[in-house]
């Protein structure tokens, strides 16, 4: 886990009472607001778990992904982080701001 400096700017957090069911390299996530279940790929679930630990900025998420990506993909980490955050926000699983999120797994 990278040693994150105090991040400036906005942070993203997981909404409260998300439920996560992990199966091998995929996961099903329950959205407590819509009652929808979503299938997430390994990258999305890794970011969700990172945000469950504590709210993070986009730069922090990109730094986290940089460590997980292959060297030739690391230059894409920032764009990848942005896309994942957008997708998680679209699903209603992530929002801007502090969180008191807890998850059932």
């Amino acid at each position, binding site marked *: 886990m990278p040693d994150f400096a105090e991040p400036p700017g906005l942070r993203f957090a997981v909404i409260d009472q998300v*439920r996560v069911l992990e*199966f*091998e390299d*995929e996961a099903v996530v*329950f959205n407590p607001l819509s009652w929808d279940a979503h*299938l997430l790929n390994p990258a999305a679930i890794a970011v969700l778990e990172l945000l469950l630990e504590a709210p993070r900025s986009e730069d922090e998420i990109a730094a986290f992904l940089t460590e997980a990506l292959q060297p030739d993909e690391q230059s894409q980490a920032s764009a990848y982080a942005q896309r994942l955050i957008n997708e998680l926000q679209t699903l209603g699983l992530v929002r801007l701001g502090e969180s008191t999120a807890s*998850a059932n797994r």
Partner: protein
Amino acid sequence: MRIADISVESLLQRLSSDGLGIDFGAARARVRTALPAVAGMIQTLYSGYTTEDAEGMFDVTVDLRRVRGVRGFIRPQCELLCDGVPEIEPFPLDTPLPLREWGTNYAIATRLFCYLLLHAGVVERGGRAIVMPAMPGSGKSTLTAALTLRGFRLLSDEFGVVRLGDARLLRMLRPLALKNESIDVIQRFEPTAIIGPRFPKTHKGTVAHLAPQASHVDARHEVANPALVVFPRFDPSAGVELEPVTKPRAFARLAVNSFNYHALGPDAFDALGQLVHESSCWQLRYGDLDGAIKALGELLDETRPIDESARAAQYPQEVA
């Protein structure tokens, strides 16, 4: 007393007065009708059931009756009232049993919110269940019927009843609805099978019902553990082909396939998650019924039973 032991006259007398209580396992219904033909049909298809006190508690009361007014004479119809309300469209008067069976299914699906209800055929052997969710026309009922005629016990042809909290499967034991070619397929497959009258003019084509065996009816209050989730698809060009399905994909297909997943929210998510977690999940493409039964039996034998002591530990835990 089993329904088989009651005369048709006595059955009709019961049906046309207080009604006949029937215990399906996970749900109970009270049936009332004064249509004479229905009594004989019920005696055939529910022969293995015991009679219940019609004054007891029931999940739904269904009244099957002839439509009054002009439709009582011109192209006469019958209608089904669920708890006094006509919730579905009338059927022609000569198809009272399909109306009663489909109507009762509808009533159960729209009332029973204490369980997660999957649209699935379910059978078990040794207390370990095979859940077979499928869309209409996939061969689900044919396969379910054939399995119950080859040593598997029926839980349901229509409802996978999942108990919230521990994901055990309950029984909703009702006659199996066979359609079109599958009626003859099952009659040839097991000539001693009790199949009721054929109704050729329903919106699903010709329909007939297979009576559940009395020993299966007697077990209607036993629960079963999930072992296999199998998505069947009949394909006459196929032999027997089994392909694994990942658990998340199985979860998604089961959720879409459920009657009430969205009404139950987190409870349904947890129950379905546990069911999938404890099951081995497969796609079955079959054209050979005997081969499919053999393959599913072997698959069930090969699948390791869940360790009962580990059930609680494997259930999703709160982590933060």
